[in-house]
Each structure stands twice: as C-alpha cells, then as structure tokens.
C-alpha cells in the first residue's frame, strides 16, 4: 500500500521539522512548504491527500491559501487542516467557517495530533 501523503505548510522551520519527523515516524510521506506561494505550487504539481496549513505566513495568510485552493477545481477537494498557534475559540470558529476541515492548536499534543491525523485518514479512505 502506498504511503499516505501530507503537505506541511509553516514558515517556522522547527515546526515543519517536528511535524515531518513525527508523521514520517508514523509512516506518512511528508512534503514541506514555507510560504503560501510555495504551498500552492506544491499542491498543484504534486497534490497531497491532506494539507496542514499554518495561518500566519509571510506572503499571504493561510485563509488566502485555502481560498485559492477552493477556487481551483483541481484542488478544491483536498482537505485542509489549520495548524495554528491561535487558540481563541472565536478565531478557531472563523477558520472552520472558512472551510478548514479541522483546527489543531500549537503547541501540539503529539499523541492527540497523530491520532487526529490517523482518524482523519480512516474517515476519508
């Protein structure tokens, strides 16, 4: 069975490294992007099965990246999870309304994080 593919988009290198190492140790195939434009390029050239998207990116916001993915028929069905250091309930609600399938707050609880990702793939397979 082919490994499940995930794209992690975060401008903080340490956050990308943590998520990549963690998910790779669980058998996922992980690619990285450090800004919005790179994220859109990655999704269009090598569509992953799941995108983990930070909200605060240097060139555009995670919400804009999501909107661009939703506007393109080729990418609109790829599920996107917000991975963010925002944790106010009103902010998280705003992200969910925008179309993120889930919001995960940083700092990550690693066990809960891997469980959420695994549950997600089970539910969508």
């Amino acid at each position, binding site marked *: 069975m082919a490994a499940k593919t995930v794209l992690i988009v975060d401008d*903080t290198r*340490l*956050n990308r490294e*943590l998520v990549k*190492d*963690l998910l790779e*140790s669980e058998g996922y195939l992980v690619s990285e992007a450090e800004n919005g434009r790179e994220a859109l390029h990655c999704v269009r050239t090598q569509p992953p099965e799941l995108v983990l998207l930070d909200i*605060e990116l240097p060139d555009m916001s995670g919400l804009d990246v999501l909107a661009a993915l939703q506007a393109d028929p080729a990418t609109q069905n790829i599920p996107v999870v917000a991975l963010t*250091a*925002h*944790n*106010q*309930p009103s*902010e998280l609600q705003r992200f969910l309304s925008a179309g993120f399938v889930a919001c995960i*707050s*940083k*700092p*990550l609880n*690693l066990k809960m994080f891997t469980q959420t990702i695994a549950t997600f793939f089970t539910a969508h397979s």
Partner: protein
Amino acid sequence: MNQHRHSETETKFISAISHKLRTPLNAIMGFSELLLDETYGPLNEKQAHYLRNINVSGKNLLILLEDLIDLMNLRWGDREVHLSTFSLPRVVQEICLAAGPAASSKRITLSIQNDQEVSDITADEAKLTKILQHLIMNAIRFTPEAGKVNVTLRLSSQPPAHLADAQAPQFLEVSVADTGVGIKPEDQERIFAEFYQVPATNTPEHKGTGLGLTIARELVTLQGGTMWVESMEGRGSTFVFALPLSAAQP
C-alpha cells in the same frame, strides 16, 4: 468609543503575545516529547530525566502563559459575559474527569454533592468552567495524600450573606472543600492577590502560577458574584462563590 478602541488594541496585543510565545513552546514541548517516546532510539536514565525536565518546564510555561492571557483579557480585553443554558453537573463532572489523574496520583477522593439536583442553569459556561477548574486544581494541589475534595452545588432564591444587597430570581452557590493544609487568617485575603503564594506552600509539589485564585475571583466578580474562603489551618479550606442567575431555570 475611545474605550472600545482601546480594548480592541489591547486584545490584538494580547493575542499577538500568545501567538508569538506558543510557536517556540511548540518546538520545546514537541521535540522533547518525540525524544522521550524513544522514536529515535533508547535513552539512558539521565537523558530521560533531563528531557522530562525540559518537557514539564514547557508545559508549566504554557499554563503560566494561559493564566497570564486570561488575566490580561480580564483586565484589558474581552470582559463580555456570554450567557447560555447548560447543565452545571455535566460541567463539574467533566472537570473532575480531567482532574482525575492528578487526584488519583495522590489517592485523593474527588466527589460532587448535588442534593438539590441542580441541573440546567443560564450563565457564562466558559467562565464558570475556568473558575471551577482553578478551584478544583488548587484543592488537589494543596491536599496531602489520601485526602478529600468535595464540590457542592446549591441554588437559592435568597441572596447569600456575602451578596446581601443583590437582587436576582436565583442565586447559585458552589463550594469546593478540601482536607488540605488550610490557610492562616492573615493569608485568607492575600491569596487572592496575583502571584501571592503562601511562603510555606511555595514548594515544588504545590507549584502553581499564583494566578488561579486571582483569575477565578475576577471571573466571579465580572458576573456580579462574590468569592470567599473559609479555612482553619491544618483542617482544610472551603472556597465558595455565589452568583446571581439573571434568568430563572428553563
């Protein structure tokens, strides 16, 4: 208008601090946990011990950050009360469930007393949850091995003595009683001041942020209520808060 704009600026500032600090905490807590899970090979005792120190310090820093953000929001940010109707016993049970591991690690019995069968109330659920979390965690923290922590729920149509002038259709009174170390009379008011911790209890096993009671009391006051403590040194403490309930039970 000015007041409103002021509060919006402060809220943005508070949100930015929270965001900026959470990002490095993610790396500190995440990488130490990844190593502790021995994903990349076995650790010797010293390495595991140091990594646990790093991980626990990260967690404590996160708790301190959350308490500070709550306090800043109370003082300068969002002070709105959001009313909804919810089951109070469910909220208390959920908090006790979450506090279960902390209690059982000291063999403390956690119980809920609800003789009047208080059920749905109309209040600010998020604020009430925070208040109860702080009181219950504090009670567990200051209660020695094999002690007891009891939460009592009461409703009354008469205002409690501490809220004699208040007018409302109903009053909620919640007490959290412990069999802990107790509080000297001269400390019973000071413990509500931010960062104040009774010197003798300011030890690693009692570690807290020193902000919990300040936050809990301010959250109660914000809703028109009051909080006090009844305690005898060596015999335990009972923290009580009373809130006017704006609408009668549905």
